[in-house]
């Protein structure tokens, strides 16, 4: 009962946030509603027992990635979204596309997923067990992602630095 109540409340907050992301025209409002979605998703993870995933969700997603978004919005001083010709076409294609997509997803889910109940905290994702998997069974993927992150850092630095400043450092060297 408690499980169902918590699930429903945070699921509704989640969906409301997602819809608000679509409705809002100013990117900062969209970003904040996405933060709300991520926060309530963390609660859903907790309900499923994935406590470590929930914590990382808040720290990495809500606390780092979304702060980056908000930072860029502030930096570029992005205004409200402007309507252009493309947006009408996009709306006409987008909404039916979404409807088709969600009906398809719903059909697949109804057809193929089991309806067995999940207990509160069904699979406790203790940090130790997850570390065991991450650093033993999935060691190679883990190392590969570290290289990916390294490349991403270098790419971000190169892309975001001004061309003049690169020239300047070249001359200095």
């Amino acid at each position, binding site marked *: 009962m408690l499980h169902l109540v918590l699930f429903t409340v945070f699921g509704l907050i989640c969906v409301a946030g997602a819809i608000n992301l679509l409705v809002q025209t100013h990117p900062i409002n969209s970003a904040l509603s996405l933060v709300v979605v991520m926060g309530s*998703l963390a609660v859903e993870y907790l309900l499923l027992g994935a406590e470590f995933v929930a914590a990382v969700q808040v720290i990495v997603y809500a606390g780092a990635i979304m702060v980056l978004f908000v930072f860029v919005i502030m*930096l570029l001083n992005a205004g409200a979204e402007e309507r252009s010709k493309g947006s009408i076409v996009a709306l006409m294609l987008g909404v039916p596309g*979404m409807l088709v997509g969600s009906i398809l997803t719903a059909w697949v889910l109804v057809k193929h997923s089991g309806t067995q109940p999940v207990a509160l905290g069904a699979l406790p994702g203790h940090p130790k067990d997850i570390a065991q998997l991450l650093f033993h069974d999935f060691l190679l993927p883990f190392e590969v992602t570290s290289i990916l992150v390294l490349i991403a850092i270098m790419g971000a630095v190169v892309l975001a630095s001004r061309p003049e400043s690169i020239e300047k450092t070249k001359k200095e060297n």
Partner: protein
Amino acid sequence: MVPLFYYLVLSGILFACGVTGFLIKRNIITIFMSIELMLNGVNLSFVAFAAQWHALSGQVFVFFVMVVAAAEAAVGLAIIIAVFRTRETLNVDKVDLLKL
């Protein structure tokens, strides 16, 4: 007890919202956020399936998704800044040439 089905429906709704946002939004930052929303929806179904099959690897996979999302956000936002510097717009309709 909540049926697993509910979690999957929630993740499906989030994913559909993400797809819609990706299609109807014109602001490049919001489009980016829609992608994150889709990834979040997928993550929820990973965790839900992990609970169903009693396999922690589903939760571990969420980490990989998060790492990829973080890398993508870093590079993507850098690209957005670079584009904004030359074009002074965030509207994707005005950024339709294959060069900066």
